[in-house]
């Protein structure tokens, strides 16, 4: 399973984003500022929008999925319970995972944005995909839910998972780090080496590196372990 981006470029008026690189099995984190082109690139990688120029090659990817930033775009069920079933999942299990048992009979559109995101992520992350593109998966979530989502994402064993985010506080376990800088995608490499050249690194990671306490990865546990290291 792999995706090759060969001089891919998307141009809109005077704005553009370009990308070259290969995504193999594992968890890839792509960070970038708001408006840098994360969603555009996510759509292109998922095969939903064609690039203006360049080519994308997908090998052995037959079951892709993209999770859009706004969870309401995925809603098809008229109740929260039906929404779980529409993903082919057992509502009892998903509602327990998302702590939404008491709202099973409500319309998904009556949930708060955070609750709906929680429900949506519980549904998406319960399934296996060859390619899973997550566009801002942590938006609208509180710290506790971000941590829960990170734990679930970290546990993904197969397929290519690509996370597009500008999140700065919580991350899952990451295999490969990328970032969009000045309209172009840069591969920073595997962790922990990639952390040294990561321009969008959170302040705590920068501080730890300055003190010579480089974390092994980006999970809370890794950060805590590095901070406590003597």
């Amino acid at each position, binding site marked *: 399973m792999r995706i090759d981006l060969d001089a891919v470029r998307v141009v809109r008026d005077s704005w553009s984003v370009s990308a070259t690189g290969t995504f193999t099995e594992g968890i890839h984190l792509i960070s970038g500022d708001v408006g840098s082109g994360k969603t555009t690139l996510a759509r292109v990688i998922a095969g*939903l929008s064609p690039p203006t120029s360049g080519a994308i090659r997908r090998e052995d990817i037959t079951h*892709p*999925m*993209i999770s*859009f930033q*706004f969870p*309401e*775009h*995925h*809603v*098809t*069920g*008229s109740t929260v319970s039906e929404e779980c079933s*529409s*993903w082919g999942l057992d509502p009892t299990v998903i509602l327990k995972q998302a702590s939404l048992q008491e709202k099973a009979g409500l319309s998904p*559109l009556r949930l708060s944005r955070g609750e709906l995101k929680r429900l949506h992520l519980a549904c998406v992350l319960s399934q296996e995909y060859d390619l899973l593109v997550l566009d801002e998966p942590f938006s609208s979530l509180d710290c506790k839910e971000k941590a829960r989502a990170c734990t679930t994402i970290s546990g993904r064993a197969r397929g290519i998972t690509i996370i597009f985010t500008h999140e700065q506080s919580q991350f899952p376990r990451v295999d490969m780090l990328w970032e969009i800088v000045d309209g172009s995608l840069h591969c920073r490499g595997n962790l922990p080496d990639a952390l040294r050249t990561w321009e969008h690194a959170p302040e705590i990671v920068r501080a730890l590196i300055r003190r010579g306490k480089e974390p092994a990865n980006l999970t809370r546990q890794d950060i805590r372990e590095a901070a406590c290291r003597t």
Partner: protein
Amino acid sequence: MQDIRLRIAAALVLTLSAFFSLAGAALAFLWWIAWSGKVSEIMRMRMILPVAGMLAFFSAVLSLTGGDGVSYFLRMMVIVLVGSWVYAEQKSGEFLHLGVWLLGNRIGFELGMLADMAMQTLHLMVRDFETIRVAQALKGTGTAGKMLVPAGLVLVTGALSRAEHTAELMAVRGYRCGGSLCPRFLTTRGDIFRCMTALCILIITVIPVSEFFILYR
């Protein structure tokens, strides 16, 4: 067309021409081909095909019940194309200028702002519909018919929620009624010529030309 006043006027007379007769519809269609300028962009609009399908259905019903379904279909399709051209040409803020120019800084401002906000919502709904369509296809929801109800619910709920938030925000910022705006329009000779051509089409359609020649003899 740069000037929204002339664009709306042209669209109005072309719509009337197409509505009155098949000849008027044919002339309006020729006008649309010659002057709309965004034919390819308009034809790419995803809504054209479903609307054409709906019109074809009603035309078939009309034909089966003894009416002239073909004429109805052709005339309505021209009206849809003219409407699509107006939609494709529309720029943000234009209706506000038009409203103030027509009805002043109180009622005109209100109506113009409402029209602009409605257009903005329509643009957002079109964009959201595209995303919903993709999301549902990936989810494997099934046929297009099955996806329409949930997609419609999401779009309407989202539009109402946005409208409520906008209203609250405007109230918080002190908006009560009307405003102050000096309307500006960019009018070119080409725009005037195109508008006059559209008007000629209406005149030709409405005035029975053959009778005019009989009188002349």
